[in-house]
C-alpha cells in the first residue's frame, strides 16, 4: 500500500505546511479563497493562443510561496505530477491545428503548438494556485471560510467529516488490503469479485463506526451544527491583499505588460 501511504503523507504534509505562521497564513481564509478564485478565472479567461500575457500572473503564487514560507521544489513536483492530464488532452492540438502562426528563423510554428503551450501554462498556474491556497490555509480553515461565505452548513460539515475520517478509513482499508495480500501472495492486485466483497465489508464497518461517532457526538451535546474553535477577523490587511491582487490581475489581464516590456527591450536592441 505504498500508494495509499504516499497519498496520506502528501495530504498530511500540505496540512503541516498550513500550520505554519507567516503573514500569508495570518490572512483571513476568505481573502485567500476569493483572490485565488479571481486568479484562476483571470488566467483561464485568456484566449487559446495567449502565452506571453500569462507570465506576469506567476507573481501571485511566487509571492505567496515565498512569504508563506512554502517549499517551492516540493510544490513544483506535485504540480508536475498533475500535468499529464492536461498534456493528454492538449497534445492533440498540434495535430489538429496546423495553421502556421509564426516563423522563427526558418522554423514554422503552428497554432496548435502555441495553444498546447498555452494549455500547459494554464495548468501550471491554476494547479499551483490551488496547492498554494491549501498549503497556506489548511482544509479546516477553508471550510470555515466556506461557511462564512454562505455555503450550506450541511455541506461544510460533510467536508469536515470526510477530511477527518479519510485518514482513519484509509488506514482501515490499508489493513484490509494487507490482510488480503497475506492470503494471496502471488497476486498483484485484487480481482473484481474479492474487491466488491472487501468494499462491502468496509462499508459495514464504516456504518457501524458512524453510529459510534454519532453517539459520541450526542454525548458531547451535538445538535446538528459544528461550532468552529477559531473565529475569523477581517482586518485591513485582508482588504489590501484582496483588492490589491485583484487590481493587479485586472491590469495584467487587459494590458499585457509582458508584451510591452518585450517591445521596449527589442526596440532598444534593434
Amino acid at each position: 500500500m505504498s500508494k495509499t501511504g504516499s497519498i496520506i503523507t502528501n495530504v498530511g504534509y500540505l496540512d503541516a505546511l498550513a500550520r505554519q505562521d507567516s503573514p500569508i497564513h495570518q490572512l483571513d481564509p476568505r481573502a485567500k479563497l476569493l483572490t485565488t478564485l479571481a486568479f484562476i478565472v483571470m488566467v483561464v479567461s485568456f484566449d487559446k493562443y495567449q502565452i506571453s500575457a500569462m507570465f506576469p500572473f506567476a507573481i501571485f503564487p511566487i509571492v505567496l510561496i515565498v512569504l508563506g514560507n512554502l517549499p517551492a521544489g516540493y510544490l513544483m513536483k506535485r504540480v508536475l505530477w498533475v500535468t499529464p492530464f492536461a498534456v493528454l488532452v492538449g497534445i492533440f492540438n498540434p495535430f489538429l491545428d496546423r495553421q502556421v502562426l509564426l516563423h522563427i528563423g526558418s522554423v514554422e510554428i503552428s497554432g496548435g503548438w502555441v495553444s498546447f503551450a498555452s494549455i500547459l501554462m494554464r495548468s501550471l498556474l491554476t494547479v499551483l494556485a490551488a496547492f498554494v491556497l491549501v498549503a497556506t490555509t489548511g482544509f479546516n480553515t477553508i471550510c470555515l471560510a466556506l461557511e462564512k461565505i454562505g455555503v450550506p452548513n450541511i455541506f461544510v460539515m460533510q467536508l469536515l467529516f470526510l477530511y477527518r475520517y479519510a485518514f482513519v478509513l484509509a488506514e482501515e482499508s490499508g489493513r484490509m488490503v494487507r490482510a488480503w495480500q497475506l492470503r494471496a501472495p502471488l497476486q498483484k492486485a485484487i480481482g473484481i469479485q474479492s474487491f466488491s466483497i472487501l468494499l462491502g465489508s468496509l462499508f459495514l464497518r464504516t456504518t457501524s463506526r458512524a453510529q459510534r461517532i454519532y453517539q459520541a457526538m450526542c454525548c458531547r451535546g451535538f445538535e446538528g451544527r459544528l461550532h468552529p474553535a477559531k473565529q475569523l477577523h477581517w482586518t485591513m490587511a485582508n482588504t489590501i491583499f484582496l483588492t490589491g491582487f485583484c487590481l493587479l490581475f485586472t491590469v495584467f489581464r487587459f494590458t499585457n505588460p509582458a508584451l510591452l516590456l518585450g517591445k521596449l527591450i527589442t526596440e532598444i536592441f534593434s
Partner: protein
Amino acid sequence: MHMADALISPAVGGAFWAASAGLIGYSCKKIKSELSDSKVPLMGVVGAFVFSAQMINFTIPGTGSSGHLGGGMILAILLGPWAGFIVMASILTVQALFFADGGILALGCNIFNMGFWTCFVMYPLVYKKIVRQHHSSQSKLFWGSMIAAVVGLQLGAFNVVLQTVLSGISELPFAGFLAAMQPIHLGIGIVEGFITAGVVAFVVKAQPQLLEITIPQADKSPVSIKLVAASLLIAAVITGGALSWFASGHPDGLEWSMFKTSGAEELDTPDNAVYDKSSGLQEMTAFLPDYGFKESEVAVAAEETAESWPAVSVGTTVSGLVGGLLTLALAFGIGFLLKFKRKIPSPAVS
C-alpha cells in the same frame, strides 16, 4: 474523467458552478427537512469510505491493467440521491484541493458530471424502476446497478466532451473526442457496474435492514422527473446564455477568443492610432456584450483581423516571448528578494 481548469473557459466553468451550487443547496435543504442529525456523521464517514476505496487498485479481468472506483452510483444507492450527491460533491472538492484532480473552477463541471447523472437521473429513473425494494432478487439488483452505472458514466463522459468542446481551448473536434471517450468509458462503466452491484449485493445480504436506516424515507420523497428536467433546463439555459453572452458580437461565434488573440498579440498591428484605439476597445469589451457599442467599429476591426490573420509578425511574437520571460524573471527576482528577508526553513516532508 476529471475536467481540468486548463481546458475550460470561464463561461462553461461558471455555468456549471452555478448548476452544481444550486443542486448542493437544494439537496442540503432536502436532507435537513427529512432526516435526523444521525445522517450527518454517516454521510461524512461514507464519503471517507469511497475516498479510501478509490485508493485501492483492483485488476480488470482480461486486461491485466488496474483501475479504481468512481463511486457516484454506489453512493446514490447506499445513501439515497440527496445525500449521495452531497457526498460525491465533497469528495470531488477534496480531490480538487489536495490532488488538483480537476481544478477549482472546473469543480462545478466535475460535480455535475459525476454526481448529477448518477444521483438524479440514473438512480430514480433506472435503478429505482428495476430494483423496487432493496430485498429484490439478485439479478434485478445486479442489472439495476449495472445499467445505472454504465449509462450514468456514459452521460458523464458525454458531458466532459461537451464542456471541452464548448470551452474551445482544446482543438479536439466534437465527433472525434466523443468517439474516443464513450467506448473508453463503456469499459470503465462495466467494471464500475460490477463493483457497484457486488457491493450492494453484499451489503443487502449481510445487513438487509441497513439500507432502510440509511435511506429512511426514500420512497416518501422520490426525485421527481420534474426536478431533473428543471435542473437540466437551468443548466442548459445558463450555459447557453453565458456562452452567447461571451460570443455575441464576435463574428466567429465560439471562436471569439481566437479573434481576440489575433487582435491582441500575434498580429502585425499597424502603427495606426485609430486601429490601436479600436483594438483597445476590443480588448475592453471582450467581456461585455457588444450591444452598447458601435457595430461598425467592431465589424471593421473584425475584418481587419480576419484578413491579416495568417500574416503574423515575427517582431511582435518575439517581443511577446522576450517580454514574457523577462516578467517571469522579474517575478522570480521579487521572490528571491522577499526570500532574502525571511530565512525560516519550510517544514520537512514527514
